[in-house]
């Protein structure tokens, strides 16, 4: 009874943040403190509800599946429902999103203290949380797309939150437009599904899809659908927006651009896995794009100097990991990594935010240094996050990363396994490069830093604890409990392989040790390395010149075609409209001379008209008679 009640009322989880947004936007924007309190209280209620939902779902040995829907839009040939689909996958996402959103909102009290836009900041945070939760509980593609666009909008609003800064404005536009490219393909894919299968509902589609397995049309549709995650989860070649998105407030980066929204793409792949895994070429494409992005972004992160950008490239790299896991059929491992990554990466971002806050908006790691003395809580929680990210046992990142590597290794994707291990090494190296330079470096710029207030450090501590513990739910130590619930048709589970575990742990430790040698002991002179490998360094430092390539392409091709279209608009479309107006005007000018003011001439026209009408009527009558 109570079980059904909780699931039936789960719609409140996305609804409450939306309500908060409306209340703040309409009535409460004059009282920022009250807005913040309401927003935090509502997301806390959503979190409690999510915990209850999770208890119900995981309380059952097989996991509960509950689905309900109400009609939102209906017309011939198209029906879009707003539904609620609660299964173990949803329950995990609900927990992750509400927990991280709650902690980030509390943290923002400290980070955004005194900002004049505090009320709108919390309004945006609320609508983001609502949209993300709405996306997670969706039971059909139409609903997913609606909320998918809403989270994109929130991302735009929050990246450009400090719109007085030109760079923030540009970054917001870049994020929005880049996502548009991906969403275009995604929408096309959804429309094709509607046209071919006549439904957008997941379970109805899942029943209809297998008949089309590996058909050309399904391969096309699944590749189009994959465009969405490529944009939203910032996979190569649409990754360019995510590093720039760091212009937003740091808590926003933690919530949206590390833990939740960018993971929506991975979630979508998991949710629509029944489509993807019936198409072998698409799976190969997904795995390749994911693996490439992981390596590509990790290599850029090696040489960046901005603390948030290092973390942003790390996020890209980890998202690539998750997408790769999806592509090689290790969906459970991918979702597991999504969960653990959400915790430790938001921890890292919030830690970075704490540092930036203490140093008055300084983001260059070389201008930090020796922060460990002044900011012990931030430092040690950050180190925990970095250890988890690097995959040091027994922290959460180790278990999830190990699952992915195991999936690649046991699934026979040896190339991707080696690539993944290499990325793990690079990850450990760049994270500890950051830590040794920023927190333990000899630079004294951090002398005046002070530890952040409790409202910021407590969320850090909570996230640190979760980052340590979250991995155990999916580890062999707890019988792979995570994999027991979050399963996918066609997914295979591999037995734990000690060799894979040992290799990944050793490789991560090696990365940390190398970073220690270079940046702490300075046995190897990093400045000399930079000069020695100047070409490579510049290539990485400039992010493989991808932005420059895009700028060049846009300048030469898009602007060129825009000029042609402008000409067409100016002379053909405008010309046609102006011609119609000119003809009307000229004929009016000519005809006005019939208006001579003489009553009798008007009367004559009238009689003439009547005569014409009479004659034509008579003709009609006679011809009908004849």
């Amino acid at each position, binding site marked *: 009874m109570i079980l059904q009640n909780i699931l039936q009322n789960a719609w409140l989880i996305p609804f409450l943040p939306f309500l908060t947004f409306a209340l703040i936007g309409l009535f409460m924007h004059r009282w920022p403190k009250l807005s913040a309190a309401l927003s935090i209280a509502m997301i806390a209620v959503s979190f409690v509800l999510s915990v209850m939902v999770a208890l119900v779902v995981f309380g059952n040995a097989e996991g509960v599946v509950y689905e309900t829907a109400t009609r939102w839009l209906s017309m011939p040939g198209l029906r879009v429902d707003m539904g609620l689909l609660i299964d173990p996958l949803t329950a995990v996402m609900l927990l992750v999103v509400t927990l991280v959103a709650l902690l980030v909102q509390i943290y923002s009290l400290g980070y955004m203290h005194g900002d004049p836009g505090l009320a709108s900041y919390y309004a945006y945070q609320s609508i983001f949380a609502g949209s993300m939760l709405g996306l997670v509980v969706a039971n059909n593609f139409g609903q997913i797309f609606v909320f998918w666009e809403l989270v994109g909008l929130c991302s735009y609003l929050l990246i450009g939150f400090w719109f007085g800064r030109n760079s923030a404005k540009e970054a917001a536009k870049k994020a929005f437009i880049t996502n548009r490219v991906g969403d275009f393909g995604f929408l096309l894919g959804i429309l094709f599904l509607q046209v071919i299968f006549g439904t957008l509902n997941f379970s109805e589609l899942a029943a209809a899809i297998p008949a089309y397995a590996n058909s050309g049309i399904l391969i096309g549709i699944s590749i189009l659908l994959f465009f969405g995650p490529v944009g939203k989860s910032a996979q190569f070649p649409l990754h360019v927006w995510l590093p720039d998105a760091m212009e937003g407030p740091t808590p926003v980066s933690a919530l949206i651009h590390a833990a939740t929204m960018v993971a929506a793409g991975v979630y979508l792949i998991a949710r629509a896995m029944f489509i993807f895994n019936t198409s072998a070429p698409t799976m190969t494409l997904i795995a390749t794009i994911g693996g490439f992005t992981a390596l590509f972004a990790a290599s850029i992160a090696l040489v960046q100097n901005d603390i948030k950008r290092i973390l942003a490239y790390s996020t890209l790299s980890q998202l690539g990991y998750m997408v790769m896991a999806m592509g090689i059929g290790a969906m459970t491992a991918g979702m597991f990594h999504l969960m653990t990554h959400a915790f430790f990466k938001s921890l890292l971002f919030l830690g970075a935010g704490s540092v930036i806050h203490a140093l008055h908006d300084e983001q260059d790691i070389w201008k930090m240094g020796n922060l460990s003395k002044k900011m012990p809580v931030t430092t040690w929680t950050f180190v925990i996050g970095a250890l988890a990210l690097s995959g040091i046992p027994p922290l959460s990142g180790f278990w999830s990363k190990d699952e992915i590597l195991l999936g690649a290794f046991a699934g026979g994707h040896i190339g991707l396994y080696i690539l993944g291990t290499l990325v793990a090494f690079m990850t450990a190296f760049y994270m500890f490069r950051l830590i040794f330079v920023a927190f333990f470096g000899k630079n004294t710029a951090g002398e005046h830093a002070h530890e952040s207030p409790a409202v910021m450090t407590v969320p850090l501590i909570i996230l640190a604890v979760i980052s340590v513990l979250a991995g155990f739910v999916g580890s062999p130590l707890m019988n792979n409990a995570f994999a027991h619930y979050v399963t996918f048709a066609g997914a295979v589970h591999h037995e734990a392989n000690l060799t894979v575990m040992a290799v990944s742990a050793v490789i991560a430790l090696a990365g940390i040790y190398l970073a220690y040698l270079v940046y702490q002991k300075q046995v190897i002179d990093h400045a000399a390395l930079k000069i020695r490998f100047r070409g490579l360094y510049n290539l990485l430092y400039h992010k493989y010149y991808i932005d420059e390539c895009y700028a060049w392409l846009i300048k030469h091709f898009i602007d060129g075609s825009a000029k042609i279209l402008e000409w067409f608009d100016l002379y053909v479309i405008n010309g046609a409209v102006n011609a119609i107006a000119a003809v009307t005007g000229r004929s009016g000018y000519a005809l*006005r*001379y019939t*208006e*001579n003011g*003489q009553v*009798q001439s008007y*009367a*004559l026209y009238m*009689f003439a008209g009547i005569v014409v009408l009479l004659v034509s009527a008579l003709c009609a009558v006679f011809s009908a008679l004849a």
Partner: protein
Amino acid sequence: MIGLAHYLIFASLLFGIGMFGVLSKRNAIAVLMSVELMLNAVNINFVAIEKFVTPGTGLGHTIALFVIVVAAAEVAVGLALIISIYRHKKSVNLNDFNLLKW
């Protein structure tokens, strides 16, 4: 014997004369009088058709009476307008009344 056709032909002639007057006369008073001729031609039609087509219903008579009343009112308004214009223009020639043009 005088039949319906005679009345209709007579009414048509009267109507034609009235129309000719409306279109050709330059004097506004004469135009008003011509309009009266046209109205009366219509009245003859009404009464004649009632007599020959629907005898005893009284419909034609009734409408003819209405037309006479309306014509009286129309003449009153028309003459008032003409007097008003005459005070401005010192003329009742329709050719001089050409204010409402391009």
